[in-house]
């Protein structure tokens, strides 16, 4: 699943102790496509940008388990139930690698989780939309994971080694998820009229939020230029969004359902699809916490965490007792 948090978050402060020579030497390594490793010197702003991005990505995986988990108990066949459960499990696994990758930058998982639960840290806004029918599970795989792959494949070449390596594995699994989602849509579109209507309704609701996953337009994107220079980011938001539209519109045609955009049109000269204006106010509202499910998603995460307090305390108490017994 995915992060769109690439460009979201607070402005970084550059630490005063960094010299121009250090920064130039660092940039030279980046320009030479060298991987930066955990113990290497790095500018404080580079470190903070990565902590923010990787932790937002991890949180997105964890929160992303909820909208899909919503259909686990109601999956329509045992095969679909198993596939969906494997996918949700993959997301938990991605969360785990990504928290570990962020920990290499000197921040603890406990701290990152605390920031998520307090509402300080962001996660991808797409997960604040509800999954209302089984077709939403198909649409999420097809569109949301499809968008995620477009964003994430370049991250396999990110300048920060631990993140890049985590993304190689994540991308392999995302690609499988995307195909499974498309397969659900294909089944629905070749099914009964009611099933096809369910697929169309899902596309109607997920199309625009999926386009928003690429983040603000390039002209509005506050962190992009520095992230590009540091090779954390390789393509701009608008470039990736265009690529997604070009691929996905053709897939929708294959499925026989309509993309809900009256302005969508192939531009023969460029070979790209022109598309309508995104409702950026909706995007801003969802990021600000006012999406349909923001409160519900965070409440559920907090409840799971709080309900687990006594279990984690028990495990710790038992480990302490065992250590004391060994020492005695």
């Amino acid at each position, binding site marked *: 699943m995915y992060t769109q948090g690439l460009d979201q978050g607070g402005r970084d402060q550059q630490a005063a102790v960094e010299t121009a020579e250090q920064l130039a030497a660092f940039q030279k390594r980046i320009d030479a496509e060298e991987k930066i490793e955990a113990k290497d010197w790095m500018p404080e702003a580079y470190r903070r940008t990565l902590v923010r991005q990787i932790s937002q990505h991890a949180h997105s995986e964890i929160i992303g388990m909820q909208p899909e988990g919503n259909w686990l108990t109601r999956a329509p066949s*045992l095969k679909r139930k198993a596939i969906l459960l494997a996918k949700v499990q993959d997301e938990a696994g991605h969360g785990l690698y990504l928290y570990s990758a962020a920990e290499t930058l000197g921040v603890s998982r406990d701290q990152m989780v605390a920031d998520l639960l307090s509402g300080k840290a962001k996660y991808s806004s797409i997960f604040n939309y509800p999954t209302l029918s089984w077709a939403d599970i198909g649409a999420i795989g097809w569109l949301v994971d499809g968008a995620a792959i477009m964003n994430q494949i370049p991250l396999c070449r990110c300048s920060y080694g631990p993140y890049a390596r985590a993304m190689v594995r994540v991308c392999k699994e995302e690609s499988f998820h995307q195909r499974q989602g498309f397969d659900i849509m294909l089944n629905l579109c070749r099914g009964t009229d009611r099933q096809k209507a369910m697929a169309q309704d899902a596309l109607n609701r997920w199309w625009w939020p999926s386009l928003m996953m690429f983040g603000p337009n390039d002209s509005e994107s506050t962190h992009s230029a520095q992230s590009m220079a540091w090779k954390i980011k390789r393509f701009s938001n608008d470039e990736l969004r265009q690529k997604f539209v070009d691929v996905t519109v053709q897939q929708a045609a294959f499925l026989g359902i309509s993309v809900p955009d009256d302005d969508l049109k192939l531009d023969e000269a460029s070979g790209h699809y022109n598309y309508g204006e995104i409702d950026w106010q909706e995007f801003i509202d969802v990021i600000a916490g006012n999406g349909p499910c923001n409160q519900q998603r965070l409440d559920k995460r907090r409840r799971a965490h709080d309900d687990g307090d006594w279990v984690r305390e*028990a495990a710790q108490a038992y480990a302490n007792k065992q250590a004391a017994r060994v020492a005695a």
Partner: protein
Amino acid sequence: MTSDETRIAYTLRLADNALVLAQRMVEMVAAEPELEEELANANFALDYIGQARMLYTHAGQLEGKGRSEDDFAFVRDEHEFRNLLLLEQPNGHFGDALVRQFLFETWYLHLLDGLIACSERGLSEIAARAIKEVKYHSRHSSQWLVRLGDGTELSHERVQASLDDAWRYTGEMFAADEIDVAFQREFDGPDLAAIHKLWRRDVEKTVAEATLRLPDDDWMLSGGKQGRHSEHLGFLLAEMQYLQRSFPGATW
């Protein structure tokens, strides 16, 4: 009851156990106390879904009427399900769900061991595969019982209450009815009385290690194996079967 009817009924009980437990485990997704437990719970639930699929498919082949795994899972009614009552009980808190896993898996491990040696070839093969999975499930649930029992005062009290509550459902695992007896006789199937002794030995050992008290064998509830369930199963099935019931004949 013919020999074929015996093995079909026996297989469906095993399949229903795996499916109903998996469905309860799936309800716990995204609500576990640690990320590592999310992975474990999903992983184990996937194992049980896999076992249910193999067992339903086997039952369908033995029956020869063209019923698929999904026909068994999604279009049978409550009274046709033959799972143990223990497995359909609501999850409760982490300790309640954990005790359910522990009591069931300790039994299931011995049952699978017995099934590997039975002469019903399909079940023997499925059991040989399933036992590898259930071995590590059982290790996981036993270790957690010890952690919670010998953890804090609160966890000790909570998990003791979970054990006391769940105990009344354990008798059913060992109460051999005509299907168990016939399967044992005709297919050299598991001996539930012998398994009871092994289960008791293992449970006593882990419960003692967890500094917990073994509940008394008072009144035991039963009926799941004969299709007489608690009120909880109806809701579980209504949710699970919703799409297949609202779109009859559709493929997914």
